[in-house]
């Protein structure tokens, strides 16, 4: 029973990592960039939701979905702006230049929020009224249903977009072979922009959900969550979309288990243990092919 309880807790946490990891993996797939500012977009998503929630405190069932969508919309604009201003000018430069820039963007966003809103922890408003049920000794709160529920819904939407829409096909084509995609008439600039928009919107959703599940936000919340999500993406196989979702869930469960079985001081260390094990045993990740698709 205790084990089941921990798995349920782990799935909530893992859903959040999964949503962030999806953006990491999509952006990596299309521009081969580890976007280290991605965790900060997640932080921005939480802050956008925080600001809106405090303005519109009316209690309706629409409050949560509207705040979620607004935050996702805001962050997709932020993601596109970051791509346009920081990464696009470096598109054909050595990768280390873009990587360094990503770290710069990350530091910039953290400090922007620190200066504009404040460096302290903030309590996230209760945009979903918490209730919980007890079933055979296991406690499940409505939040533990909403968080994975939203994640599953978003992953399904993402799957539809990537496989059934023109933009999604363009994304797959560009990430497989950019030149040939161009020869088919794909506008690569637009496709990269859309990828950043979608990845950032998913990170924003993670930011809102984390605010609901663990209601404390601060300007640096994206660093550790971003790192863990990055490890999740590597665990699943970087560049592989289902891998990111799977890796995120496993990371969440592993973290909760490590805390439960050993010590809460292992909460953050477990991610790096996972990273080291993956790199030693199967560097291409769980779903990665032995030789990566991109030759």
């Amino acid at each position: 029973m205790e084990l089941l309880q921990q798995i349920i807790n782990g799935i909530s946490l893992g859903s959040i990592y999964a949503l962030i990891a999806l953006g990491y993996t999509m952006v990596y797939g299309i521009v081969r960039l580890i976007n280290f500012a991605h965790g900060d977009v997640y932080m921005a998503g939480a802050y956008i939701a925080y600001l809106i929630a405090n303005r519109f405190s009316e209690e309706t069932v629409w409050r949560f979905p509207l705040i979620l969508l607004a935050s996702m919309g805001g962050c997709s604009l932020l993601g596109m702006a970051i791509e346009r201003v920081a990464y696009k000018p470096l598109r054909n430069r050595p990768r280390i230049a873009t990587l360094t820039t990503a770290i710069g963007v990350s530091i910039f966003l953290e400090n922007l929020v620190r200066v504009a809103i404040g460096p302290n922890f903030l309590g996230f408003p209760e945009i979903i009224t918490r209730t919980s049920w007890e079933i055979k000794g296991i406690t499940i709160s409505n939040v533990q249903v909403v968080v994975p529920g939203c994640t599953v819904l978003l992953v399904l939407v993402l799957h539809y977009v990537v496989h059934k829409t023109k933009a999604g096909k363009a994304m797959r084509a560009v990430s497989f072979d950019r030149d040939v995609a161009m020869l088919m008439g794909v506008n690569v600039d637009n496709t990269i922009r859309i990828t950043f928009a979608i990845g950032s919107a998913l990170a924003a959703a993670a930011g809102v959900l984390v605010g609901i599940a663990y209601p404390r936000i601060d300007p640096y919340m994206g660093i550790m969550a971003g790192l863990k999500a990055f490890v999740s993406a590597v665990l699943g196989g970087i560049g592989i979309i289902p891998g990111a979702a799977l890796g995120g869930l496993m990371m969440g469960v592993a973290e909760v288990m490590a805390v439960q079985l050993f010590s809460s001081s292992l909460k953050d260390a477990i991610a790096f243990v996972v990273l080291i094990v993956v790199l030693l045993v199967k560097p291409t990740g769980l779903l990665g092919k032995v030789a990566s698709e991109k030759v």
Partner: protein
Amino acid sequence: MLEVNDLHVYYGGIHALSGVSFKVEEGEIVTLIGANGAGKSTCLKAISGLIQPRSGCIRLKGQALMGIPAHKIAEAGVIHVPEGRRVFANMTVLENLEMGAFARSDRSGIEKDLREVFRRFPRLEERKYQLAGTLSGGEQQMLAIGRGLMARPKIMLLDEPSMGLSPILVREIFDIIKSINAAGTTVLLVEQNAYMALQTAKRAYVLETGFLTMEGPCDKLLADPKVRSAYLGE
């Protein structure tokens, strides 16, 4: 249809094309032959916008193409089937063909062209839900050509379509090129298999380390002693 004038391309310090000029008239098959590293692929990449020439002029039906992004050039009807097939190995055969029609939105026309590609390449229809990466080399070449046809090109730039194929398949591919041309598509064919290319095309240009050294009707070049010794192994 397509006119290339005094084209210069550099890769860093390497002068890959030095003042190349040629022409492809509507309805023709024109071939560009030459040894490894002569600059044939570079020529096609410059036309389709994958690389930016230093100077020169490229025109499609009088409209300047240079400086236009590659995806716009494809939309204009210049379809480049690159060297080495480059099919999307992670997509199915059908998805690859749909990618070929990416710039189009005329659903019924796309449907019709898809049926036409399957009629031409029945093996692709049998394998339409198979991942393109699992096809044999010859099948991948057919897919690459079929994908190009799905764009309904005005002019098709084919880069070494016979590369790595068995003699029977080579013949088949050249027959297909002729029939595509007979159906109304202008073709610029780059080949190392000079003999087959000269048999297939109407006119030819010979490229040597970035310079055009010969041009003329294919039957003339086939009879030319210099061509025979340098490219036909005599």
